[in-house]
């Protein structure tokens, strides 16, 4: 697995998500941080101390995996006590700490039960508990921990994770390919693809200002509309129509670019704006989503409340400050007029 150079500072007490499709390198990055893999180049620093060559057990990290990893033959209490016993903590201190973490995770009643008899999500809590029980843990790493959890119960475990985060003020790094998980969990999301980091930003910023076409496309449901266009100065030409851009773009080679805008910032009206063919309007309860066509391009747009679209054509308006221009998939900033 090859990763492109990554330079990042992960701050204490914040929650980060590593988001991206399968094979993008997020698990590799996580394993480099936790010490399960060694990078061939580069360094990992904890508080300025170089830990790159240190094995996992000597770093102050804990990791939760895709499926619950528990010690079958032990009780829940023994599971939680295990990391402390191995580090030669004294028995009374272990007992107190185990009780504290069990209370935090609602496992107090299960302490004397055999770990393998629990439900899957309880087992995953035990896995989590084993990481939290060490007071010196500086970072909690999660590798898609909700993968085997029943969808109906995912929210429960997610809110538990947030509660733990607030209570213990830990640095948490969470790997996932599910954008909902990433966006609800993290303070900052690291979007990755093919071994490179595309953008590191808060969920709001990722939504409002994607710096890469993949970020725009991957985040949001449906994702950003991306349309090939010829850009000349402050106008984008798409299928014989001109769209006004919010800035000037004098330096685009051949004018080849992609314009992007989210459906949330595009609205449909019976007339006015760019003429488009209406294919379908879906009533999703909270909003109405229209699927329209501009020439050969398929576009998603919002239908505002109270507006009814009758015939097969309508007018599309795009919020100018949410209309972005991408060249070679990267966001290009124009000159404001």
């Amino acid at each position, binding site marked *: 697995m090859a990763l492109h150079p990554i330079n990042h500072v992960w701050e204490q007490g914040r929650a980060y998500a590593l988001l991206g499709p399968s094979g993008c390198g997020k698990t590799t990055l996580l394993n480099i941080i*936790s010490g*399960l893999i060694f990078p061939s180049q580069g360094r990992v620093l904890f508080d300025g101390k170089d830990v790159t060559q240190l*094995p*996992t*057990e000597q770093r102050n*990290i*804990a*990791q939760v*995996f*895709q*499926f619950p*990893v528990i*010690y*079958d*033959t*032990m009780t829940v209490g023994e599971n939680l006590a*295990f*990391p402390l016993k*191995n*580090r030669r903590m004294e028995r009374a201190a272990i007992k107190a700490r185990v009780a504290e973490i069990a209370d935090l995770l609602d496992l107090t009643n299960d302490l004397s039960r055999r770990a*393998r*008899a629990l439900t899957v999500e309880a087992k995953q809590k035990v*896995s989590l508990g*084993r*990481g939290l029980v060490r007071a010196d843990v500086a970072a909690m790493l999660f590798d898609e921990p909700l993968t085997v959890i029943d969808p109906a119960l995912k929210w429960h475990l997610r809110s538990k994770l947030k509660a733990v985060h607030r209570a213990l003020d830990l640095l948490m790094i969470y790997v996932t390919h599910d954008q909902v998980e990433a966006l609800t969990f993290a303070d900052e999301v690291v979007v990755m693809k093919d071994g490179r980091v595309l953008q590191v930003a808060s969920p709001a910023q990722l939504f409002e200002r994607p710096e890469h076409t993949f970020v725009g496309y991957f985040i949001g449901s449906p994702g950003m509309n991306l349309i090939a266009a010829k850009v000349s100065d402050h106008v984008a030409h798409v299928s014989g129509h001109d769209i006004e851009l919010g800035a000037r773009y004098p330096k685009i080679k051949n004018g080849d670019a992609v314009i992007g805008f989210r459906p949330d910032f595009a609205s449909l009206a019976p007339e006015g704006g760019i003429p488009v063919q209406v294919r379908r309007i879906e009533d999703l309860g909270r909003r109405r989503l229209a699927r329209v066509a501009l020439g050969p391009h398929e576009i998603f747009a919002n239908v505002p409340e109270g507006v009814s679209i009758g015939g097969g054509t309508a007018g599309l308006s795009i919020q100018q400050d949410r209309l972005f221009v991408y060249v070679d998939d990267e966001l290009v900033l124009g000159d404001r007029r």
Partner: protein
Amino acid sequence: MEKPLNNRAWLMVAPVLVLVLFSALLPMMTVVNYSVQDSLGQNQFFWNGDAWFRDLLNPSTEIGARFSDALLRNLSFSLVTLALEVPLGIAIALCLPRGGWAVGPLLVIIALPMLIPWNVIGTMWQIFSRADIGLFGAALTGLGLHYNVTQNAISAWCTIVVIDVWHWTPLIILLTYAGLRAIPDAYYQAARIDAASRWATFINIELPKLQKVLVIAILLRFMQTFMIYTEPFVVTGGGPGSATTFLSIDLVKIALGQVDLGPAAAMSLVYNLITLTICWIFFTIMTQLDRRRYA
């Protein structure tokens, strides 16, 4: 896991059924036939009821004594070899690398003893254990031990045990290795994060996950030691005296050597019944383990 009920599946199982019925049930029927009859010679048989069986299971009769001696010999042999092979096999399996180029060749070398025809194993060790032409025999007598396979019962016993351990530990190694490979990496990673020692990793992760494989391995090995024939036959012939006359050797002696078909048949049936019972016990243990896992 839901499996659709489909009785047409019997068609797919039919060839297997026919073959094994032919190989197993048909012959057993003749055995049952012989076990309840006696003969005055010249192919004339008359009903003998359970007389053979009662003789067999009564240690005070000649055949009963012979049978219980052989049974005892077999059981102690099985226990001793298992006690040696299982820990050794597990220990060696733990030493094998989890991946890489060396695995293939190492597996081949380790499996080699199992690929040798059993009579050749007997011959090999027959040579190897002789004091005049074999390294093993020469080394032991050179150390001053009274080692003589043909005359000393303890030597004969120890040699057969060593042969069996040499021959079949690879089976335990291969099965254990397969079981170890099935353990996901995450468990080992979690153990490292928990700062667990190698021993703690073995006891808490590897051994529990090897339960099913070990039950299978122990069952197979127990049955094989219980049925052992060729190796002791070639190396010691069952001797000295009857020191290494195991059940199979005794049975073949009676059945093919003499004309006592009745007692031989009775012994066959009891022998088979014992193996079936042990098999059933292990099978139950295995299904219990499966059920517990998915509880």
